[in-house]
């Protein structure tokens, strides 16, 4: 099945692994969970030899162990989980992994936007059916959250802070009373949440202030703050992990030379430190330079070399993609990149050699083309 989808949800992609874990899991499971908390942790963070299982479970989310533990434990309690952090820190990905592991369903997602209404988290009506048969449970379209309640599984709410306060208020009653009533119906008009229902929401800390959460809603969520990965080693792991997945998805046979990965990580690290010492916004790239952004650059470079190049990833292509994805504002971003190329890449290419000279060349060309 996963072959037919552009991007399979985690429970499909890792179905076999989840089956395996379920088969060896003898730990106690809360509610109707499919796996015990420890197995979920292993699914997300990967196995170790000391865990004594016969196959290796790869790590899927990279970050401090305690974040994962705290998240799992929160879901086993009666509070919702709110993952909060900078863009691109893997919040949505962690939410997906957790729901996949807990209930094998990570697709009950509501996307929070300014246009999200109460209907999106409760229910709406199939108008033609209502006209034909009147209002009934049949003609009602439950929202993903309501579906999750009925099934006793995890519902997800992306970008919670972007939705308006009406929507947030509706969520309060769902989280505290754990039922939704349908006043339009005369009977069978209450949907109760089954045990195991909970919500994983994500919020972007840069959005704070857009629609601040009410304290009533805050109280019903445990907050787990996911920081930006600054450790180069784990960042490398994330990038490699995601890119390999991407290659698999596009069925691309291509080597990712470790030296190029190093160059990518190094240049992001340089640009980040430049950004943090910049005094005005004009001296700072518009991009947040997150891990996700790095993945984006690499992805672009890979696709480019695969479809337009000679199927080998070259430093030159990487440089081109990096410039292309980071130069969003002309001339500010271009000027910053140009400065970086002259001030940092050039000396480094003289000193370190390796792939750097080619990277230097590629970047120069790309900057020249764009300016």
């Amino acid at each position: 099945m996963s072959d037919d989808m552009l991007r399979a949800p985690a429970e499909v992609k890792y179905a076999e692994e989840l089956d395996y874990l379920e088969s060896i899991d003898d730990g106690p499971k809360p509610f109707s969970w499919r796996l015990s908390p420890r197995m979920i942790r292993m699914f997300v963070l990967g196995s170790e030899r000391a865990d004594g299982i016969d196959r290796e479970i790869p790590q899927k989310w990279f970050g401090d162990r305690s974040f994962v533990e705290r998240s799992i434990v929160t879901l086993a309690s009666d509070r919702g989980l709110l993952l909060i952090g900078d863009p691109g820190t893997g919040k949505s990905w962690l939410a997906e992994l957790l729901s996949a592991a807990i209930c094998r369903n990570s697709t009950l997602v509501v996307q929070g936007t300014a246009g999200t209404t109460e209907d999106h988290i409760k229910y709406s009506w199939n108008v033609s059916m209502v006209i034909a048969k009147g209002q009934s449970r049949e003609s009602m379209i439950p929202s993903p959250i309501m579906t999750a309640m009925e099934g006793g599984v995890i519902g997800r709410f992306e970008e919670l802070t972007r939705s308006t306060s009406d929507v947030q208020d509706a969520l309060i009653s769902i989280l505290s009373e754990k039922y939704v009533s349908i006043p339009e119906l005369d009977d069978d008009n209450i949907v109760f949440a089954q045990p195991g229902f909970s919500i994983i929401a994500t919020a972007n800390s840069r959005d704070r202030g857009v629609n601040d959460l009410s304290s009533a809603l805050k109280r019903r969520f445990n907050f787990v703050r996911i920081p930006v990965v600054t450790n180069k080693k784990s960042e490398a792991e994330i990038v490699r992990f995601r890119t390999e997945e991407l290659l698999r998805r596009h069925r691309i046979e291509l080597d990712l030379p470790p030296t190029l990965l190093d160059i990518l990580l190094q240049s992001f690290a340089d640009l980040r430190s430049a950004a943090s010492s910049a005094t005005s916004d004009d001296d700072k790239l518009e991009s947040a330079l997150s891990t996700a952004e790095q993945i984006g650059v690499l992805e672009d470079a890979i696709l480019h070399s695969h479809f337009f190049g000679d199927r080998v990833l070259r430093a030159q292509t990487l440089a081109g993609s990096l410039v292309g994805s980071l130069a969003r504002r002309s001339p500010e971003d271009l000027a910053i990149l140009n400065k970086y190329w002259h001030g940092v890449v050039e000396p480094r290419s003289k000193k370190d050699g390796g792939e750097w000279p080619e990277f230097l060349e590629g970047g120069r060309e790309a900057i020249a083309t764009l300016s």
Partner: protein
Amino acid sequence: MIDQPSPFGSLREQLLGAAEQFAEGPVAVSGILSGLVDDVDRALREELEIFPVCHHSPASALAMVRRLREKQPKVIYLELCEDLQPLLTELRNCRLPVALQAFATDIDGFPKSWAPLSVVAPITEASAEYQAISYALETPGVELVLVDRSTDHVFQWAPGEEPQTAAKEEEAGLHGDAVGVEIGDLRPRFAELEEHLLHHGKVRHWSEWWDQYVEQPLSGADYETYRQVMVLIGSLFRRLGPGGGRLAVDEDRERYMWTRMREHLSASGADAADCLYVCGAFHAASHVEQFGVRSEAPFEISPRTGTKWLYGLIPSSHSAIEAQFGLAPGSVSIAAATWSKALTRGKLTPFQLQGQKGARKRPAKLPAPVPQGDVADKLTGFLSSPPALDALDEAELLGWSVDIVRLARRNGYLASTADAIAVYETSILLAGMRNRARPTPYDFQDAAVTCIEKDSVPGRRDVRRLCEILLGGDRVGEVGYDALPPLARNVYDRLAPLGLDLEKRTIQRALLNLQAEPDLVPCSDLLWMLRHLLPSDAVRPIMGERKLGERSIQESWDLSFGKHQRSIIELGYEGVTIEQVLEQRLRRKVWDQKATAAVALAAVEDAILFLGSRRFADELGARAVELLAAERTVDDAPEVLRRIRRLMAYYRSAEPELPAWCEAFATSGYAHYCTLLPTAFVDDDTGVRQVSAMLGFLFSMESLALALGCDRAQLELAVQQSHPEAPAKVALLWAARHQLGLLPLAELRSRADELLANPLVIPSFPQYIIGFVQAMEPVPQLSGFVVEVISKAFGRLPDGVLLPWLPKLITTLREGAAELVPVLVREAGRTFPGSLTAADTWTPPWESRPQPASAAGAAPMASGPVAELLLAHPAACDAVAGVLGCAGEWAAPGAGPADGHPEVSALLDGHPEAALALAGLLS
């Protein structure tokens, strides 16, 4: 080993895993494993009983209490610098944690740049060493012997480079820049091993690893198990650790300790069986030849250097210890909490020094010692019994959960009972997930953060910090009066009249009404000295000032001695009284290689203000003269000028005559600055401000210098030799020439007007203005002219030139705000109209000047002998007019007898000296 679930199962796995990871190949692993067994065996069989400890391990402290009660040794050998021994009894006067300190400023045998040398050894109450110390000092007939290398050897054996230190803050900085030594340092010796253990142990930091894998399983263990486990860990870290300098030092220490112990045994005739050797587990697994009482391997202990060491106690704190030894924040507090819980649980009475703050009145009698059994393999038996979970833990966790919610509320969180329940549940869930039998403080902390922390921290402290506070918080020690050095005691004694409790850690407010209570004057004097010597928030004047020639009659002070006890104690290493320390410091400052005249003048001022000793101030002043003469740059000229003016003003008002050094300073300064003036005018690196200060010095000291024999020609020559090119300095030079009478005001004005009229120089005109503004300092009578020039500039300069330069003008004025601005403003106030209506009809005086000038011309020309005299001998008048800035022309004599009084002219013609001298003086 056995394959049953056991408290040590996971520790074994951890250690085995580490051995496999870091040993090279399977052969090496088995080598290491058998080596571990050998090490444990050897340490436990040693005739002199070895007690392996780990720092901040409640398990170590507990085992120590039990063992001491059981064995009641006669001699205790302790791994601690031997020269710290005399300090130990002083611990009685302190509230722990405090640190034993050795301090040296007077160094001999080490690179000078290392000074001051400072070593601290913190002692906490929850430590095995404190138990051993208390037992030994409180039990009659027991001897305590410190056997580790002296503090001098700490530096002798230090690797070549300077001992490094890092900046810390507040409580964490209690130890200052000292090098820390600790008993029982037991931690992986290289980062990869620690990382490996943390990663595989699924914990965040070392303290948590230790707590989970060693501390908890050991909490109920018996002595033999305890020793075996500790030596095992010590041995593994030793075997996996890198060799190199640090290990070499450790081995030397082991040789040192065993040599000292053997020396003591043979000298005292003590039976090794009655002794106990307390050392870090790392050293228990030592391989040096000198190991064991039976060893005969020699070791020569090198003599100490000539460095003079001073000893004392300084306050310490949990956070200072954590910062110094790289432990996770809160871990020492958590260890202390675990220790007191374990005492309650085990119904144990710890040993405590008499007199210790908070100590029980009389020590409990020790029961009879228990005879020593055989060393058996207790590990096996213990491994199969799971740890007992008791009600105490549950109640404790509940208590914590309730308390943290209360604490959080007090700190602005919207936490409720529901949160308390959630924290409790979450702690248990987390512990379960982390494979722990019961939640540790770390689980609790994580749970509290999860359930209470939201998107922002409402108050000053976040939940993590609140948990640390709840679990014991930082404890800050205090050194009691009797254990203080003489200087510190002296300070407290002399401040006693203030009637404040200066040992309190909170800020104390002292109010001194010096008029009503003149006996508080000495306190005030002392406070001003302390203000000078201590960190600024230790002693802060809120009201009152002490300046040259000024004393307040009322003062109020914020005193925070409790918090800054260390600083006071460390002053005590420098001398016996504050006065002595201050005098030494000032002396050191002016004799330093980098000292400048400005520094020396500042020292003179301090000496007058704080020490009131004329003799000493003169000594420092004489040094200032020397320093000035030797200076090759004039960077400090503004500072020198400011200070010497202030000092002279003070001496003139307070003393009958200037001290000799002041006179010497004036004359040698006059010659010095004259010599440097031409270079300073052309040198690009010398600022306008510096040159202006030099001129200021020359002009204002002139009369004094000339009176003392200097030659004015020197100054004139210097000015004539100056040929600046930078516009600002050109302006300054003009002003100087004007001051010397070489350039009348009228000419100065016309030069300025020319500049303004010349489009080629207009862009640099603002620079001239800067020069003129600076010139107000040395030539204050020019201020009217400066207002004029500025007004003209604002009126005539194009915006394109004016605007970019404004900020520069403002910063220039700001630098000299104290001197320049008031003059300028006063002058401007005099020049410009005071009201709006007046402004309409106002013409600037310099534009209306021709009229009064012509009016004066129109005035009837007086005639008579005076007019004739002046007409015939105009030099003196011209000179006066030049100085006053009046332009004018000699009018033809009015009607009147031309030769009315020929006798006067005849007199002057005959004796022109007086008139010529007056003219000469004025021009």
